[in-house]
C-alpha cells in the first residue's frame, strides 16, 4: 500500500484498528467519531478505510461460503482413514 510514503504513527494504528472494528459493527460511537476526525487530515488512513470498506462489500456481495470447522474435521478424518488404507 502507498502508506509507506506517509508516516505511520500511533494514532494511525489506533484509527486503523477502529476501522477494522467498524467493518464488523463493533466500534463504539465515540470511536467512530474519533476515526472520522482522524480521516479528515490523514490520507493514508483514508485510503485504508476506503479499501477496507470495499473488501467488506465484496465479501458480502459474493455470498462466499465456507465449510465450518467441524465439517472440515470430519472430512479430514475420513480422508486420512482412506489415505492410510491406500498406503498399505
Amino acid at each position, binding site marked *: 500500500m502507498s502508506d509507506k510514503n506517509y508516516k505511520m504513527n500511533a494514532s494511525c494504528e489506533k484509527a486503523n484498528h477502529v476501522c*477494522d472494528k467498524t467493518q464488523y459493527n463493533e466500534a463504539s460511537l465515540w470511536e467512530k467519531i474519533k476515526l472520522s476526525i482522524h480521516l479528515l487530515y490523514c490520507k493514508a488512513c483514508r485510503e485504508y478505510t476506503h*479499501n477496507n470498506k470495499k473488501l*467488506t462489500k*465484496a465479501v458480502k456481495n459474493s455470498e*462466499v*461460503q*465456507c465449510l465450518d470447522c467441524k465439517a472440515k474435521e470430519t*472430512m479430514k478424518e*475420513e480422508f486420512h482413514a482412506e489415505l492410510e488404507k*491406500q498406503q498399505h
Partner: protein
Amino acid sequence: MPKHQIDPNKWINLYSDYLFNYTISRVSDRDIAQDLVQDTFLAGLKSMKNFKGEASERTWLISILKRKIIDHYRKINSNKGKAEVRMNYNSDTESEGDWLEERVADPFDKTAEDSIQNTELGDAIHNCLSKLPPKQAQIFTMKTIQGYDTEVICNELNITASNLWVIIHRARTSLSECLKENWF
C-alpha cells in the same frame, strides 16, 4: 516447466473451502455440496496415479469435482425423470401494467448475470485467501465469512483479542491488495 507435485495430505487444508464454494454456487445445498467435495477428494485419492502434473493440483481436483456435480444432477434427474417446468401464469387480475410485458419478462432470469459475477468474485476471494498464511486465512474466514464472535474465536484458537485484531488487520491489508490486482 517444473512438474506439479501431488500431496494429498494438504488437500483439505488447501482446497476444501475453494471447492466447497465452487460447489455450493452450483448446487445450492450445503449438505450435498459437502458430500460432493468429500467424494471429490476420495476420487482424487483413488486416481492419484493418473495425475500427470501438467495442471496444478487444484485445477485437477476441480475437473473431478465438475464431473461429480454433473453426475449429481444426472442422478436427481433420473429419479424424477424430468426437468421441472416453471410456468407462472399471472392470476392476479389486480396487477397493473402491460399485460404482455408481465408475461414476457422472465423473473427467474433477472439475476443470472449477477449470480455469475458473484460466483467469480467468490472464486477470486478464495484465491486470495489461499495466498495468505493459513492462520490468517482461518481467522479471517471465521470472523468475516462465518461471522463468529471475537470471543468465540479467541477461545477456540487460544489467542487474545488484540492478537486477533492484529491478524485481522494484516489479512485485510493483503486481501484488499490481492483483490485490487484482480478484481476492484
